[in-house]
Structures are given as structure tokens and as C-alpha cells.
């Protein structure tokens, strides 16, 4: 390998990146994704638009209504409309939740007769509906156990310690996973583009017919995306810790090392894509298809790997994103570092993926027209 050739080729790549303004995308896109998704995905439910119909109007029913009014989870409006009218409001998406306290509520309660409170929830977004149902149950049980004349016979309560994410913040749960997604998609697209662009414009024949060797070509093509996205490793870390206030409990060196190894495997994916495609647009679409979906599904962002079963468990183990994200989540939230044998193993697997994919790509790539 001639270093002079590599250097000249690499300089050309950098210059072209800057001239074609592709460099803007290289830095704008990851930041945009982490900010939009970091703020955009909120699973926690607050300020649910609640309608409360109190058909009883007694002291007890008002006390119960007040419980809903003083909660940050509900934006309660008490209304004197018919049940039908209120349901219509849910149908036109003007309310999320309807609570109906029946008439005779207090009287029946004082006589020790069972009564029923009707709750209607907009179930269009299922997870939100379930969370709301649980909130309502919680408020009601809490109120009822105080109003009740008969104390409960047996009661098991829970003393829960939330590990690693005490406040159960959505940011802590999602932002580290986004790093794994971004560092998978962005470098792969860039690496694929740099090679396919030459194919589409026909300038790849310069390489075919020149004495530049395949290894020199690959090093020159893949080093710019590697270096540029190495900066993004730091940028994303800063967004996570500074903007989203995600704690960082592990070792930065481990995070950096894992991220660089992971970058190699993303570049490998980009290289493989560039071998099978001929036009830039197809290269982009193909990279997006094979990286974004697994990047989301197997990131552990939405669903923990331990809950997976069957095919999805096998598929999760096939993609490098699972191994990287385990290390990222550990570095941010748990902080075991290299003490854990699992993390040492995963780091090895990442190294294996990085070198393996790149080797495969360089073997499959031919210095001639296919």
C-alpha cells in the first residue's frame, strides 16, 4: 500500500465532501435525529383531557372528582352533559377519557351497597389507553380505601426500587438507544454513497484503469466517513448528557471504543450495499431499509431484548446494534463497564463484526466491471 496514493485520494474525498455540501448532512442529520426523536417520543402520559360527569352531586362524589382535578396526569373538566354527548367528544378526538359517577353514588356507598363507576378511554393508541386505565384505577383505589367504612382484610403493597432510571424518564430510556440507531444508519449511507457516486457518474473507471490498488481505494474511501463520524460519537454524547440530561455512569473510554468498533461494522454494511447497487438513490433506499428497521426493533429502545422470543430473538442477535446498545445503555445508566463478562464478550463480538464485514466487503469488491 502506497501511503502517498492513499493520502492524495483521501484529500480528494474530503474536498468533494465539502464542495458537494454533503458534509452539512453528515453533521446536521445525526443531531437532528437525536433532537427530534429525543423530544418526540413520549410514552409517559400527562395532561390527559378528562371529562367528568358527576350525576350524583353529593359530598363524596365531589371529593372523588377533586382527586382527579388535582393530578398532573389529568386535565379534568367537569361537565353537565349527557353521556352520549361526552362520548361524541371522544369520537371527535376532543377528549381522551370520560368518567361517569352514577347518581345515588353517596347513598349506596353509605349503605354499603356496591356501586359502579364508568370509565371510557379512547383506545386508538393502545399503550396510552392502558396507562390511563391504570392511573384511574390508582386514583380510585386510593380514594376508595379512604372513603371505605370497612378496612381491607388483606393487602399486599409494593415497595419498588427503580434501578438505573429512578424517575423513569423517557429521555433516559430512549436517547442512548438513538445513538446506536444513528451510528448504524448515517455512516453506512455515507460509505455507500462515496463509492456508488463514482459508479453512477462513471468515474469509477478511473480507478479500474489506474494502478491504484483495491486496498488503497478502500482505505481512501472509508477513512473519511470513519473520521467524520468519529466526531459524531462525541457530538451525540454531548447532546445526550447536556441537552437531555441523561446520566453517564460508566467509562467514557469503553463507550468510545465500542462506538468506534461499531462504526467499522456500519461502514462494512455501507460497503456491501455499494457492491450490489449502481445508483445513489437505490443505495440510499437499500441502506435505509436494511438499517433503520433493525436499528429500531432490536435496539432495546422500545422493547427489552430479554422479552423477545422466537425469530425476533434470533434476528436481534444477528444485528450488531443489539451488542452495541447493551454497552451504551450500560455506560449511560448502569455503569458496570468491563467488570461484566457479558460486556467483554459483546465488545469482542463488535470487533468481530467490524473486521468481518469490512473483510467480506473487500473480498467481494472487484476492480473491474461486473
Amino acid at each position, binding site marked *: 500500500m502506497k501511503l502517498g496514493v492513499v493520502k492524495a485520494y483521501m484529500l480528494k474525498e474530503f474536498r468533494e465532501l465539502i464542495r458537494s455540501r454533503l458534509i452539512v448532512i453528515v453533521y446536521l442529520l445525526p443531531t437532528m435525529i437525536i433532537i427530534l426523536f429525543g423530544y418526540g417520543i413520549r410514552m409517559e402520559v400527562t395532561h390527559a383531557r378528562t371529562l367528568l360527569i358527576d350525576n350524583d352531586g353529593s359530598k363524596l362524589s365531589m371529593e372523588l372528582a377533586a382527586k382527579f382535578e388535582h393530578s398532573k396526569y389529568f386535565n379534568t373538566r367537569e361537565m353537565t352533559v349527557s353521556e352520549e354527548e361526552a362520548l361524541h367528544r371522544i369520537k371527535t378526538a376532543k377528549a381522551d377519557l370520560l368518567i361517569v359517577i352514577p347518581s345515588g353514588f353517596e347513598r349506596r356507598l353509605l349503605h354499603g351497597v356496591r356501586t359502579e363507576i364508568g370509565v371510557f378511554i379512547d383506545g386508538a393508541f393502545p*399503550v396510552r389507553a392502558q396507562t390511563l386505565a391504570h392511573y384511574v384505577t390508582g386514583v380510585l383505589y386510593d380514594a376508595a380505601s379512604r372513603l371505605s367504612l370497612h378496612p381491607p382484610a388483606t393487602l399486599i403493597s409494593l*415497595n419498588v426500587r427503580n434501578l438505573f432510571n429512578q424517575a423513569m424518564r423517557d429521555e433516559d430510556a430512549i436517547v442512548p438507544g438513538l445513538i446506536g440507531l444513528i451510528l448504524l444508519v448515517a455512516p453506512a449511507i455515507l460509505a455507500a454513497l462515496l463509492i456508488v457516486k463514482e459508479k453512477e457518474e462513471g468515474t469509477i473507471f478511473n480507478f479500474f484503469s489506474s494502478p491504484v490498488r483495491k486496498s488503497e481505494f478502500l482505505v481512501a474511501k472509508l477513512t473519511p466517513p470513519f473520521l467524520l463520524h468519529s466526531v459524531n460519537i462525541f457530538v451525540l454524547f454531548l447532546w445526550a448528557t447536556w441537552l437531555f440530561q441523561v446520566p453517564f455512569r460508566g467509562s467514557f473510554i469503553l463507550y468510545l471504543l465500542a462506538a468506534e468498533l461499531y462504526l467499522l461494522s456500519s461502514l462494512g454494511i455501507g460497503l456491501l450495499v455499494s457492491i450490489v447497487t449502481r445508483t445513489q438513490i437505490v443505495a440510499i433506499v437499500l441502506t435505509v431499509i436494511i438499517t433503520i428497521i433493525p436499528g429500531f426493533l432490536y435496539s432495546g429502545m422500545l422493547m427489552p431484548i430479554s422479552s423477545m422470543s422466537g425469530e425476533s430473538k434470533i434476528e436481534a442477535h444477528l444485528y450488531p446494534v443489539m451488542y452495541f446498545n447493551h454497552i451504551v445503555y450500560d455506560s449511560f445508566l448502569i455503569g458496570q463497564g468491563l467488570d461484566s463478562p457479558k460486556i467483554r464478550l459483546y465488545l469482542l463480538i463488535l470487533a468481530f463484526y467490524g473486521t468481518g464485514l469490512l473483510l467480506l466487503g473487500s473480498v467481494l469488491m472487484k476492480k473491474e466491471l461486473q
Partner: protein
Amino acid sequence: MRTFWALVAKELVAFFRSWGLVAVVLYSFTLDIYIAGKGIELQAKNVTVGYVDDTGGGISLKILSRLHRPEFRAPRRFLNQKALYNALRNREIMVGILFDPEFERDYDRNGRATLNILLDAVSATQSYQALQYLQNILLDLSDLNLPVRLKIHKLFNQNSRTSWFMSLAEMLSVITLLGVILTAAVFVREKENGTWEMMLLMPVDSRLIILAKSFSQVLILMVGVVLATGLVLFGAFGLPINGSLGAFFFLSLLYSFTSAGIGLFVAAASRSMLQVAQLAILIMMPLIFLSGAWTPIHAMHPLLQKLSLLSPLRYYIEGSESIFFRGTPFWDLWPYFAGVLLLGGALYLYGFRKIGRLF
């Protein structure tokens, strides 16, 4: 009119000749939606539980026997707290239950006891749901003697199936994405090949050309929508349709023109397909972000709530959810139609004038 249909036919032929594009469109409208609906599971399922049991085993076994599929996986026993904690840190289990002797003693003596739980809260939503399940199980076991009962109706999706919601949301994003990219591609490909000037110099009204070109892509989109609705939404996931299907298709048609309008703008602003891809991503992401697909709009920052009024996707998503799930009567859908029509009209007109003013 004949010229118009000839131009539409030309674009359709061009589309079917590029088999790569056909494959991508088909994939997006079928398999992609299927994978999203099947794969993205927000509901906690198969939660892994570990426990340490230092009691005689009366009440603890009773609780453990209630942890079963589909919510929980069979609980794993650990010998001591340290092993349990290690498994939590390695994220092998999500919930750790500690049955200690005091728990059993308290329970036997006066019927009240506190159970210690260690919860891996890294994936916050799922952990919270696992906790809900546990709480419900314990409430079930306890004899509360409550005089009040709740009757909860989850309207429109009684069993809380995530696949219904996810597949619909994914289809709507696919329509947006393809609408923009396909339309922009038709124009930019001509630009790249240098034939766009020729098109504009033909003895045909250039407005007719632009209209025909974007209409052909809207046609392709609509075929995709019908395919996806029939095969994936109804066929694979069995979505309910509580409103009128016609209204949904009509809304989709209007929305397709909207995204075609964005495509026109993108095409006017870019010279190569690469720039189209970049611009499309830059425009699409805020659009999707502000649409309320993931965060309900009333839970956003007030400023963002105002901004979201500008995202045509917002009206489309809310409208489609209303048609499929809420079964909103046709005449109550007017805000969604008005929103899509207004924003779509403005965007389309703007893009239309921009691309026609090329030279």
C-alpha cells in the same frame, strides 16, 4: 385532455420500467408496514422475572403462580440477592422480587405486608407496564373489601392491540415519504438527464405537464394505499373500520396531492437525486415529529402545539385514526379535510409555481 392522459401514461410506463422503483414501492406498501405492525410491540410481554425466596413458600408460591404468559415469562429462581442484582445489571431479567422472612411473617400475622421489588427501569414504558401487571395481580390476591367497582371500557380497541395502531401509523408515514420522493424523482430525473428544458419547451402548456406528472405519482400512491389497506391492514392485522372507507380514501387522495406538492418544492430546489434525498429527509422529519404520531399534541410544548397546526400530516393522522377507530361520522371529519385541503392546496400551488419557473 388527451395530452394530459398521454403524459400520465408516459410517466406510468417509465415507472413500471424501472423495476427497482416498483420493488421499493411494493415493499414499502406491504412488507414494511407488516414488519412495523408485527415487530414494534409497545405493550410489555414476556417480561422476565427473577426472584429470591427466603420464606417457607406459602404466599410467595401463590404470587409466583400468577406470573404467567403472555405477560410474564416463567420466573427464574436466584439463590441470593447478589445473584439477582447481577442478573438485573446484565439485563437478563427486568423484575426482581425479594420474598424475605419479614414479608411472610407480616402477611401471616395481620394480613398486611410489603413486597420488595427491584425493577430495571431502563426501558421506562415497559417497566412501568410490568409494574402495573404486578400491582393488578397483588390487588387481585388481596381482599380489599371495596364498595366501589370500576368498569373500564377501552373504546375502539378493547384488547389494546398495538399492531392496529402501528400498522396504520406506518402506512401514513410511507405515503408521506413516497409521495415526496416519487414526485420529486420524476422531475429531477428529467433535470439530471437534461430533458426537463425540452419538456418545458414543448408545444404543450407547461402547467399541464407538471399537473400530469404529479398526478401520475398520486395515482401510483393511491394504488399503494388501496393495496396496503386491503392486504396488510385488513388482511394481515384485521383492523376495524368504524367510519367510512370512502372518506379515508378521499382524505388519502387529498393528502397525496399535499405530499406531491412538497415533492414539487423539493424538485425545484434540487439538482440531483442525492439532493432530493437529503432535502426530503430534512423536511419530512419535522413534519412527522409535529404530527402527533408519537406524542399527543396536547402534551407538547405550547409553541410546538401551534407549529403542529402547520403539519398536514397532523390532520391526516388524526383524521385516519378517527375514521378507522373512533368511527367519527363523516360530517364531523370536516376539520381534518379542511386542514389537509388548505395546507395541501397552499403547498401544491407553491411547488407548482416554483418548478414551472425553471428558466
